[in-house]
């Protein structure tokens, strides 16, 4: 049994089909990202897992349970972070974690320590409405974890967070995975999926257009090969194109892409040319496609 099982799921709102036949599984100890643009069906999918809506067709199971029919048995075992969720406007974080701990049959031993973990120790007595958006977001994450969940469903967990908050949330998600928790999260940010997820499910207009690890997605991608690198913005791309045997173009200030076979010898030629010219060579990326490229092509090719 997988921790999360989604089978031919269909969700409709009136005449609009938000989720159109999605099947996927997520296992204990893995982070699965549902990735897609706004309106791709990510939130509708997770809302069926949370028991907020019944599938119009197909089925979902979390820990082998039906999120609607087996609600009472399931809720103590999962942790949920809703998109743009509000709390009582004058509740303090320390009161909120203790309250939610009291609702769970087997909560963490020390709910207050959870506030340290999400970086809210200094704000533990500040009422909710005076917390910043990022602090509210981190409190919502703490509340999702207070019941020691086996499956965690996070809808846009890093949206609206600053760099520090993102790092914190990412490290917590990795810890959860290492503890054997199944983490299912949604994001429309490629960077987030790339950093966090073991596997990525790409949704587009309610359909699953790709599912797999980043390496698998990149390997299955039939797009042209390329090597990306950064260097001085006044680089002589024409000369370098001749050396590498394929077109080199600037993607942005100081960042370039060479549409050539992505191999060690290409990288060696590239590095050699930079050394000859006495130029500084920045980040070089070859072999694996960026998720962004794979994703763009998947979404563009999708019917």
């Amino acid at each position, binding site marked *: 049994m997988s921790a999360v099982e989604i089978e031919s799921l269909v969700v409709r709102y009136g005449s609009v089909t938000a989720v159109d036949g999605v099947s996927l599984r997520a296992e204990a100890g893995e982070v699965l990202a549902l990735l897609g643009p706004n309106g791709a069906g990510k939130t509708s999918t997770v809302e069926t897992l949370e028991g907020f809506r019944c599938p119009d067709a197909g089925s979902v199971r979390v820990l082998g349970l039906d999120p609607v029919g087996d609600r009472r048995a399931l809720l103590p075992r999962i942790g949920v972070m809703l998109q743009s969720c*509000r709390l009582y406007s004058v509740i303090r974080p320390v009161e909120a974690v203790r309250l939610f701990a009291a609702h769970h049959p087997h909560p963490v031993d020390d709910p207050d320590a959870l506030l340290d973990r999400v970086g809210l120790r200094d704000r533990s007595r500040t009422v909710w409405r005076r917390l910043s958006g990022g602090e509210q977001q981190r409190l919502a994450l703490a509340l999702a974890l207070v019941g020691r969940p086996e499956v965690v469903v996070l809808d846009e967990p890093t949206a609206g967070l600053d760099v520090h908050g993102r790092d914190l949330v990412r490290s917590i998600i990795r810890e959860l995975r290492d503890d054997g928790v199944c983490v299912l999260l949604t994001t429309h940010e490629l960077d987030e999926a790339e950093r966090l997820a073991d596997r990525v499910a790409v949704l587009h207009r309610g359909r699953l257009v790709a599912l797999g690890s980043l390496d698998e997605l990149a390997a299955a991608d039939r797009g042209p090969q390329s090597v990306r690198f950064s260097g001085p913005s006044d680089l002589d791309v024409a000369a370098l194109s001749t050396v590498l045997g394929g077109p080199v173009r600037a993607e942005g200030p100081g960042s370039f892409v060479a549409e050539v076979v992505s191999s060690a010898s290409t990288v060696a030629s590239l590095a050699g040319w930079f050394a000859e010219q006495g130029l500084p060579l920045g980040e070089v990326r070859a072999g694996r496609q960026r998720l962004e490229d794979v994703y763009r092509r998947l979404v563009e090719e999708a019917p």
Partner: protein
Amino acid sequence: MSAVRAVVAQARTEVVLAVRQGEQLLVALGIPLLVLVFFSVVDVLPLGSGRPVDVLTPSVAALAVLSASMVGVGISTGFERHYGVLKRLGVSPLTRPRLLGAKALATVATEAVQLAVLLVVALVLGWDASFSFVPFVGAIVLGTVAFGGLGMLLAGVLSGPANLAVNNAVYLLLLLFGGVAVPAAELPGPVGAVADLLPSGALIAAMGDALGSADTAGAGTWLVLAAWAVVTPVAAAATFSWAPRD
């Protein structure tokens, strides 16, 4: 045991948050207190025979129950729903019966404090201190269920701001025409007849049994109150939407 722990924790949170916000407590305690003191001292209401404080005490006790259960529960629940707090609680293991139990517990705790303060002030003003336990508890329980149900009915169907406005409007209408400020018998004929069938009039008559010198409530009064205590929660349960109104 975990059910008791969850309900008590939730009820305590609801009380703490209500005290911290203050406005609802002002309505729940301040207005009944003001009515009691002002109209006991200044003889302007047509209260019929008897000393004003003896006539007012049951009405004001009823008003306190009405405001704690309908306005207090209704407005806070309406905003909790409006802002998605109920949706968040809906994915915690707190079940709906437990949430309702916690709200009932919090309301009764609020009422206990209100009634204690009001009755002490009434004594100071010279209330004759007639008290019957069974009608008192009966009036509190039936009144809380009837008006709590009405508050939940409004909270479950209206958007947050509309719920706030309608709750306050219903409170004011019941205060003026429901036999609270002015006894039903003193209202013009048809209005008085309607007031007898309203839960507010029935609650006041029932409180009259509990805290008045004479039995004011017949079986009909208790029947009216009991009927409201069935109708409003059932209507609320049938129409309540836990998710915010789109």
